[in-house]
């Protein structure tokens, strides 16, 4: 287990302020890709198990059965100063999963919602959850550009996603470090503007 380079995993001892941004979105929208493009460590994964009564698509002829499922959270890290480290937690969009990781949303800078325009409707639930989130977690939308994505203007997408006027939206390429950083900067600026 103790590999030769395991000492690389540790933070400088001067770091005392961990902060975090949630990277949320439907399955397969590129959350882990975005995290990996800016993280100083290879993204790590943790898993939680949850027991749930299956419903909807899992139902077989109306039979309910309990299933234990594993929900994964990938995350990365950026040390951004002597004292500050930023964690990027990729979490499933549906807020019911956030409870799996105690305190995941508490104290976050905000949430970056990654959206795939080819499956826009998959993002609706995520956005609904964030807009009604009681603690008012600031969020911004990053439209992940896939190779076969048709280009839609920001205003068009804002309308299609029914975003509030104050919610920032940006196009990005989750594979590209600069582009992902731009999206994170936009979110942080938004959080700062709400912090009066």
């Amino acid at each position, binding site marked *: 287990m103790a590999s030769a380079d395991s000492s690389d995993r540790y933070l400088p001892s001067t770091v005392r302020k961990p902060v975090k941004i949630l990277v949320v979105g439907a399955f397969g929208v590129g959350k882990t890709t975005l995290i990996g493009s800016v993280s100083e460590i290879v993204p790590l994964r943790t898993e939680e198990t949850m027991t749930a009564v299956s419903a909807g698509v899992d139902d077989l002829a109306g039979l309910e059965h309990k299933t234990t499922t594993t929900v994964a959270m990938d995350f990365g890290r950026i040390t951004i100063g002597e004292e*500050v480290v930023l964690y990027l937690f990729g979490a499933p969009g549906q807020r019911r999963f956030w409870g799996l990781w105690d305190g995941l949303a508490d104290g976050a800078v905000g949430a970056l919602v990654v959206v795939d325009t080819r499956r826009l409707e998959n993002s609706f639930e995520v956005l609904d959850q964030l807009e009604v989130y009681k603690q008012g977690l600031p969020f911004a939308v990053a439209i992940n550009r896939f190779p076969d994505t048709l280009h839609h203007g920001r205003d068009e997408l804002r309308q299609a996603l029914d975003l509030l006027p104050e919610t920032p939206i940006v196009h990005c390429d989750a594979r590209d470090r600069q582009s992902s950083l731009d999206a994170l900067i936009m979110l942080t600026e938004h959080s700062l503007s709400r912090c009066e």
Partner: protein
Amino acid sequence: MSDDDGYRDRAVRPYVVTAGRARPSRNIIRPETLLVATDGDRPLPVSASREERALLRMCRRLLSLAEAAAHLDLPVSVVAVVASDLVDAGRLAARSGTPVTAAPDRKILEEVLNGLRRLK
């Protein structure tokens, strides 16, 4: 990456290692909370669990709860309980960036923003 965040069935009962507890004894522990052993050389009592020993060893230098959990291949919720016990016992120190339940203040948001801009 579409398979990366899916579900997978697993027949494990992680709460055996936490004596059935799903919540840590203190609420200062979050996934990003930084942990470091206070006195790594002092042996734990013989009654200490395998997970307590493994976590203390993992945290001989500074690391977040989520990272420790990932490296130990244990759920964050389980490691939060174990970490909390070790904090209570004075063996682990925990560092949190923002007070519990509070949003980050302006000063720390500015530090994050400047830090991100410097990376560009």
